[in-house]
């Protein structure tokens, strides 16, 4: 082949270090792109936020909680809010990729497809954490509970990682179907149940100021599911997005 005359010719050659650099560069590019697009449109975050606030308000009016029941019920309400808002965000995040064929654009990139998964996972996780950070103070106010315990914040982080890990994988699968809006929650909720249960139990224990010995098993379970879900998604993503 004739030599390229372009002054900025690209030759992507092999090499382990170059490969690793490209891998992380692709992840950061996807996160940057998701954040830049969202900062401009505010489509995804505003939908998640409005939905989360509506769920909180509905629960606040629907449940007349005594001081004692607040400690046991609010954690469930909190996680239901996160899960519902998160599902909305996951679906929209992947739908943006499907529009104008951008998912094909992602799949054409010469990096291992797990990089695409981790890029989308990080973007989704950031959106979810931002929504949670906005929702928590309001929640604390409405239900008169202290949600700013560092242990609770750790549970929220671990729960969100597990939820986003499996959610990103399933959203990538659902987005390729015509019934993607219905399919995602149907696929996601049963699979993510262990994460949600562990997160609710751990949050409950923290709210009730129980000893760490009671909380640790749930935290361990959360960590274990996070690892399993991320590892499984890492291995399966290529097959899921394959036509």
């Amino acid at each position, binding site marked *: 082949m004739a030599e390229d005359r372009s002054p900025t010719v690209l030759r992507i050659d092999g090499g382990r270090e170059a490969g690793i650099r490209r891998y992380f560069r692709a992840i950061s590019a996807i996160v940057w792109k998701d954040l830049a*697009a969202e900062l401009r449109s505010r*489509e995804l975050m505003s939908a998640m936020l409005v939905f989360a606030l509506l769920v909180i308000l509905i629960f606040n009016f629907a449940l007349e909680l005594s001081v004692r029941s607040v400690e046991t019920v609010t954690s469930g309400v909190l996680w239901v809010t996160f899960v519902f808002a998160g599902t909305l965000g996951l679906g929209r995040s992947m739908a943006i990729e499907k529009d104008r064929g951008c998912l094909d654009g992602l799949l054409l990139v010469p990096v291992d497809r797990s990089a695409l998964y981790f890029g989308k996972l990080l973007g989704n996780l950031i959106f979810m954490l931002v929504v949670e950070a906005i929702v928590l103070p309001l929640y604390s106010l409405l239900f008169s509970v202290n949600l700013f315990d560092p242990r609770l914040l750790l549970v929220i982080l671990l729960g969100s990682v597990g939820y986003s890990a499996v959610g990103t994988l399933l959203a990538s699968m659902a987005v390729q179907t015509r019934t993607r809006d219905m399919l995602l929650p149907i696929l996601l909720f049963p699979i993510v149940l262990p994460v949600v249960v562990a997160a609710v139990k751990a949050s409950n224990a923290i709210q009730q100021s129980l000893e760490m010995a009671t909380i640790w098993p749930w935290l361990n379970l959360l960590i274990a599911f996070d690892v399993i879900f991320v590892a499984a998604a890492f291995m399966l993503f290529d097959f899921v997005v394959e036509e």
Partner: protein
Amino acid sequence: MIEVRNLVKNFGWKRVLRGLDFRVGRGESVAILGLNGTGKTTFLRILATLSRPSGGSVSMAGQAIPSQSIQVRRRIGVVLHQPLLYGDLTAEENLRYYARMYDVQSGKTRIDEVLDLVGLEMQRRELVRKYSRGMQQRLAIGRALLHTPDVLLFDEPYTGLDTDAVIMLDAVLKDAVSQGRTLVMASHDLPHAAGLVSRIDILSKGRIADSISCSEMPVGEMVLRYKAVTHG
């Protein structure tokens, strides 16, 4: 450069490609023509590593598809029916994103070159969702050329382009081929394609049914032959 043997592609029970053989050398340019639904896009998607073959073998520069897809993807620039661009990013941001994804060195300079090439330097800071269909197609062409690929796989790239853009794309493709790049293009416009490529392959019933060297036959005769093959 590209070698395809006995390629089969099934969608469920439907067999779209039925033992397709295809070969194109380095620096060659080929247009694939055929009626709607004959599998042109499917074939290009397989070459682009976006779709897995159901049978047969496909290789590009000695690298097999799908087992060495990452290496193949480094070599190809693809234009599909959709522009593969983000509406909420500007043209410049879209190219910056793809430059990072393809690890393009001197990305900013290359982006300037590409925007200049496709005639969008004045609209570089406009959101892509505000672009017309033709402008999006121009940018999609720029995106495909950004990482200076060896092989161009263009699926009906002239769709939605105005006359200026058609002239621009003709020049870009001729220049690319003159630089030794390989071009495989799906098209519906035989006379236009004949003026651009060295060979026309006619896809019919899931196979390359005929192959015409553009230097050896006048366009009128090619059209008659195309009709005979596709409707015969």
